[in-house]
């Protein structure tokens, strides 16, 4: 509230506005509760034995997380899930795959997009704006259009069911990353670069020694967002790596594990523990970079 508003008591206090503030707070807390409840309830269920869940009850145990991580003995598994083998799901392998895929895509995409963004923001060459516009139209093409031809291409390259195939379409650029970084580079003051250029510095030198250090916070933010996007991707791995669990990321492995469960009495507690563990890395990233992510949305958010 501004000083002026406070002096005049924020307008005339009508009944509606006196009731309004507590009601608004109530609504906000309700929305926060709705947002958090599914996580809380799933955590509670994952911390219970499967048999207790089926009796609508709760029996505290860490066993589900242990067996998802491959730390539990056969007797413990039998007791917790009610069966000896509850489907094929090597969590640690899928976790490794997700880390590799997301890291390669995040680093590659942001670095190569940064190079392109530098050219668009700082260089002059014939047809520059036309080429940039062409990149922008790429943002409007729905992924389903390119999905099928890209799959055929991967088949022709022999890259099906491999890391190469999963990362290839995203590792070199996305139109959004180029756009995001170009907009930011344009807002950086050029006077240092102008002086260096006249003194004979090369563009490669300027990119490395001026732009990259200045833009580091924004590039880290973009890298985090790219990492999360790559981590969450489901459809592309599903079509390009349908059979090889040596390269399948967590999202896909979870989906496959789900379809292997019997419809009548699925291994709920195990599945939920795996689900929460799959979300954990994203939550950790959010705890560390949350502020930056929120700010970046306000930056990309249309002005």
């Amino acid at each position: 509230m501004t000083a002026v508003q406070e002096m005049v008591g924020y307008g005339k206090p009508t009944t509606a506005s006196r009731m309004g503030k507590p009601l608004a707070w109530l609504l906000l807390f309700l929305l926060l509760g709705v947002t958090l409840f599914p996580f809380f309830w799933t955590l509670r269920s994952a911390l219970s034995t499967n048999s207790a869940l089926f009796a609508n009850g709760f029996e505290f145990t860490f066993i589900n997380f242990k067996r998802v991580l491959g730390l539990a003995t056969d007797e413990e598994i039998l007791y917790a899930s009610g069966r000896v083998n509850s489907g094929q799901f090597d969590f640690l392998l899928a976790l490794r795959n997700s880390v590799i895929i997301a890291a390669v895509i995040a680093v590659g995409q942001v670095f190569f997009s940064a190079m392109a963004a530098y050219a668009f923001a700082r260089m002059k060459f014939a047809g520059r704006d036309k080429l940039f516009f062409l990149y922008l139209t790429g943002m409007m093409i729905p992924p389903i259009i390119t999905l099928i031809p890209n799959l055929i291409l991967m088949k022709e390259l022999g890259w099906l069911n491999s890391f190469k195939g999963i990362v290839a379409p995203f590792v070199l650029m996305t139109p959004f990353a180029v756009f995001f970084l170009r907009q930011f580079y344009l807002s950086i003051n050029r006077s240092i670069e102008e002086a260096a250029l006249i003194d004979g510095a090369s563009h490669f030198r300027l990119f490395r020694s001026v732009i990259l250090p200045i833009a580091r916070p924004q590039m880290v933010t973009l890298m985090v967002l790219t990492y999360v996007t790559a981590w969450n991707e489901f459809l592309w791995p599903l079509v390009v790596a349908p059979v090889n669990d040596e390269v399948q990321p967590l999202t896909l492995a979870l989906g496959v594990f789900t379809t292997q469960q019997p419809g009548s009495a699925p291994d709920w507690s195990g599945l939920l523990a795996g689900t929460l563990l799959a979300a954990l890395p994203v939550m950790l990233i959010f705890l560390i970079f949350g502020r930056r992510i929120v700010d970046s949305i306000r930056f990309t958010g249309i002005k």
Partner: protein
Amino acid sequence: MTTFGVSVLGMEFPGLLLAILGVAFGIGALVTVLGKRSLYGGWPTAYWFLLPSLIGFVVFFLFPTIRGIYLSFTDWNLLANEGEFIGTENYAILWTDGDFWRAMRVTAWYVIINIGTQTLLAIIIAVMMDRLTKSATVRGILLLPWLMPNVVVALLFVWLLDNNLGVANQVLGWVGLGPWGFLTSINGVIPTIAAINTWKFMGYTALLIFAGLQTIPGNLYEAAALDGATELDMMRRITIPLMRPVLALVMVVTVVGSFQVFDTVQVATGGFSGTPGGPVKASQVIYLYIYRNAFVFNDLGYAAALAAVLFVILMVVTAIQLRLLRAGESDLA
């Protein structure tokens, strides 16, 4: 397709990859020798900065888009990986395909419910972020679901909404209702999935709108407060009219995204050895129908035609929205 390739240090390099790299570096050499240099780069320098992204753009965006349109005029089969040019036959089939029209109806119904609830809640949250609390924690919590993988979100709600064990039906049971098949009844499944994605995206959408709210000058609110306006008056007479251009762009982005719902449907309705899109195709949205044609029925040609039609529909929807919301003009001027 060419099948030549070379093996270097035990690694196979397919002929197609060599061809792409050969062309890229060939053009590079020509540009470097013949292009005009200047203090601000010129093509000889710019080309090498652009090269990785150019390969990515041409190979994975530009070429596939053109190829996708070509495929829609063929009967390309996924397993055989070949097909004949058949003219507009796919489009003729599509016109009389009941499943396609059903998928469009299901998708439209989903978009209406999802965008309606999501935008309304997002506006309310955005105004609260602006006028009630600037707390970063509140914003963070509301943004959290947006960062979750769709697969995780779908599984959380499959559990919460389970017919026998889900907490939602337990609560309904206490008040003497239910159990209700949220994800297993024909009328319930689309509203349920729409609500799940509203839960996921309302915080993110609110932040986009919130960013737009920051452009409204604060003195308008001060003046209104001096004149005795209530919060509701201000919302109706200042906030909503002035954020129309922002709202228009946010709506375009969210509606286009909403049309492309897939993961949530695939996992939440596929569930345990079920058929995605069920019960009885009641949740077979257009993306899922395209996916099934391509990768279950192996009919890539028809799937490409469906994708092309979806693309055209999305462009038309976007154009109509921008027109209706008069996105280009602001009342602030």
